[in-house]
């Protein structure tokens, strides 16, 4: 398959692994930001093929995992309302709230639908004027433009029965939180290629400068990751810092200006709570005042939620790269995809799910 097979060849992998072995002179810790990258690493076995000196730790880039519990509970509350058609990407449906998940609400009679695009939710609202259609707008900068477009279109169409439950998060503030922590051990980053497709990578340059770390914008195929790792390790060994672009077939420094404009028009930056991590200043998007009528949190009464987070789940430590999923005492015991204590065990981009699904720590 064009643009896929080229990045999955065994010979190419061997070449990069040899090059990595040659370049590394001492133990190194590199973090991949995105959950999609985490899954590629574990699924293709890269973590087991790397030399012992190279440790990859998994970052906070799973949108489902960092969505705060109170937001999930709000989603559940909305989904239970008889007039609401609650729509979401499939990934979100199995994430545990304080009491249950969206699939359970569906089983109990809630109208919960899995969509592939937020624009389908707009279509649903247009064809079901008697119902309230709510879309669960989660994700990083990657999914935000499509969600912004959905809100924009809803306004263009004059829809009065469409709203979004918005919990967007941004990558650079999370990286800053990791780098700024006193006990940070991450020496270099693989930045999330798809986020940079939208936002470009100029906003990572001050971070690399301030914390003197190499950041390599990296794709999602096995060879992308091996090449990104190689570039990061070469920079580390040479004592260089700064931003480099491995994913040049998709990412430009300035990103996608059109998508950025759409984001700018619909969203504004706000403080945001990250599940398992806490509130990070200026780390999320919320709808601008001009689009307040499409904000599900304003449209419906979703206040007064008391959340119950698992005391045994160490998702926060895992998403900051301090612990591996298989170092969690509950991993595979009290916490499994059928009985998750936290979101990373059920999300398709969660590190715990990758470790469990592909048999790490078994």
């Amino acid at each position, binding site marked *: 398959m064009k643009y896929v097979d080229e990045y999955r060849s065994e010979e190419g992998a061997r070449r990069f692994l040899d090059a990595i072995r040659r370049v590394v002179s001492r133990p190194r810790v590199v973090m991949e930001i995105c959950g999609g990258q985490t899954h590629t690493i574990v699924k*293709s076995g890269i973590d*087991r093929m790397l030399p012992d000196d190279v440790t990859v730790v998994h970052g906070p880039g799973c949108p489902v995992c960092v969505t705060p519990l109170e937001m999930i509970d709000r989603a559940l509350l909305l989904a239970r309302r008889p007039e609401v058609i609650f729509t979401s990407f499939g990934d979100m449906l*199995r994430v545990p709230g304080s009491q249950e998940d969206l699939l359970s609400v569906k089983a109990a009679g809630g109208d919960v639908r899995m969509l*592939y*695009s937020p624009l389908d939710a707009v279509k649903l609202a247009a064809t079901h004027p008697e119902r309230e259609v709510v879309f669960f707008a*989660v994700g990083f900068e990657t999914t935000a433009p499509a969600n912004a477009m959905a809100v924009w279109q809803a306004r263009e169409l004059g829809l009065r029965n469409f709203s979004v439950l918005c919990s967007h998060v941004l990558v650079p503030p999370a990286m800053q939180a990791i780098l700024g922590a006193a006990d940070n051990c991450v020496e270099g980053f693989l930045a999330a290629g798809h986020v940079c497709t939208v936002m470009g990578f100029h906003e990572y340059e001050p971070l690399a400068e301030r914390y003197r770390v190499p950041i390599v914008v990296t794709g999602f195929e096995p060879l992308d990751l091996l090449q990104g790792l190689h570039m990061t390790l070469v920079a580390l060994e040479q004592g260089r810092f700064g931003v480099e672009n491995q994913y040049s077939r998709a990412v430009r420094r300035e990103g996608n200006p059109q998508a950025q404009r759409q984001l700018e028009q619909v969203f504004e930056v706000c403080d945001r709570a990250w599940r398992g991590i806490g509130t990070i200043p200026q780390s999320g998007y919320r709808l601008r005042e001009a689009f307040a009528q499409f904000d599900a949190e304003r449209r419906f009464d979703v206040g007064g939620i008391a959340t119950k987070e*698992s005391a045994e789940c160490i998702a926060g430590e895992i998403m900051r790269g301090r612990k591996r999923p298989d170092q969690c005492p509950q991993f595979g015991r009290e916490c499994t995809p059928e009985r998750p204590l936290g979101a990373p065990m059920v999300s398709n981009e969660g590190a715990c799910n990758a470790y469990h699904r592909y*048999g790490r720590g078994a």
Partner: protein
Amino acid sequence: MSRPDQDESEGKAERLSGATCPLPLADYPKVLLAHGGGGSLTQRLIEDLFLEQFRNPALEPLHDGARLEIDGAQLAFSTDSFVVRPLIFPGGDIGSLAVHGTVNDLAMCGARPLALSAGFILEEGLPMETLRELTRSMARAARAAGVPLVTGDTKVVDRGKGDGVYINTSGVGAILPSADVRPERARPGDTVLINGPIADHGVAIMSVREGLEFETDLLSDSAALHGLTAALVQRAGEGLHVLRDPTRGGVASALNEVAGQAGVGIRIDEVSIPLREAVRGACEILGLDPLYVANEGKCIAIVDPRLADGALETLRAQPLGRDAAVIGKVVDDHPGRVVMRSRIGGDRVVDVLSGEQLPRIC
């Protein structure tokens, strides 16, 4: 269920259900769609609820069909229900699928199908023309398979209480004299084969479901396999150890069931698993793993390694086996587990999913 360490686990349960645990998701108070997804929730439902109540020696192997000995005659008996939506899909419809499904369950027991029953549950308001078309297709499939439909039943439910039409088929077959195919006969050293490309059916269905508008000619692989399996039995005799049709849950779930039931490990090689480019592309876009996607005309055969070449030749001589391939082998290592060598040469466990795959956010 008995709990070995009552005190400790009760203490833990209390801790979890009190302030911390989101929900013991394995003990769902209501049936979820995932209980029918062919993954571990389905398995648990069958083992903990149905097997517990109905336990008997013919049921216990939990094979595709039961083996019954009646006055010295070896019979296979199987049943399957079909609730597919849409009723007519690219490459087939619920009528032909209902014939193929039960014929294949019998074929996987090493049997020659003798007769089928058909039970229709019709929804009030279903266009008579649709029903006529479906029964015509069903009759055509039964004639082509050479298996008569000898008895049936019809029920009609209120409008809104069904999805147009549900069909149940049951079948009896005569186990071929030299056949002894049972999952537990898989033994280390055996070769694992498949008769063609995987994931066609599931992707064809998804391509026409609401929200997805793929412009491709993806067709379901729905077909009757008893001719092909009879040829294998004839060629390999008792050297043919296991037959399995990887329907819901896909190749991954079928192989895991065999590994678990036989107490052996199975190693497969990603590069050797046949997969159409268009299907692979669709799976890439949706973030689905084709190993877990349903097939309706595929058969996994596990044979004595000395007969592997002959089995492959036999499969390839069949119209439904032209693209047959050796995809792996049975091993001593990691009993109960399936391990796959990835395209780039890394290893990963291929686990059973809890329910159906959910497409990812980005």
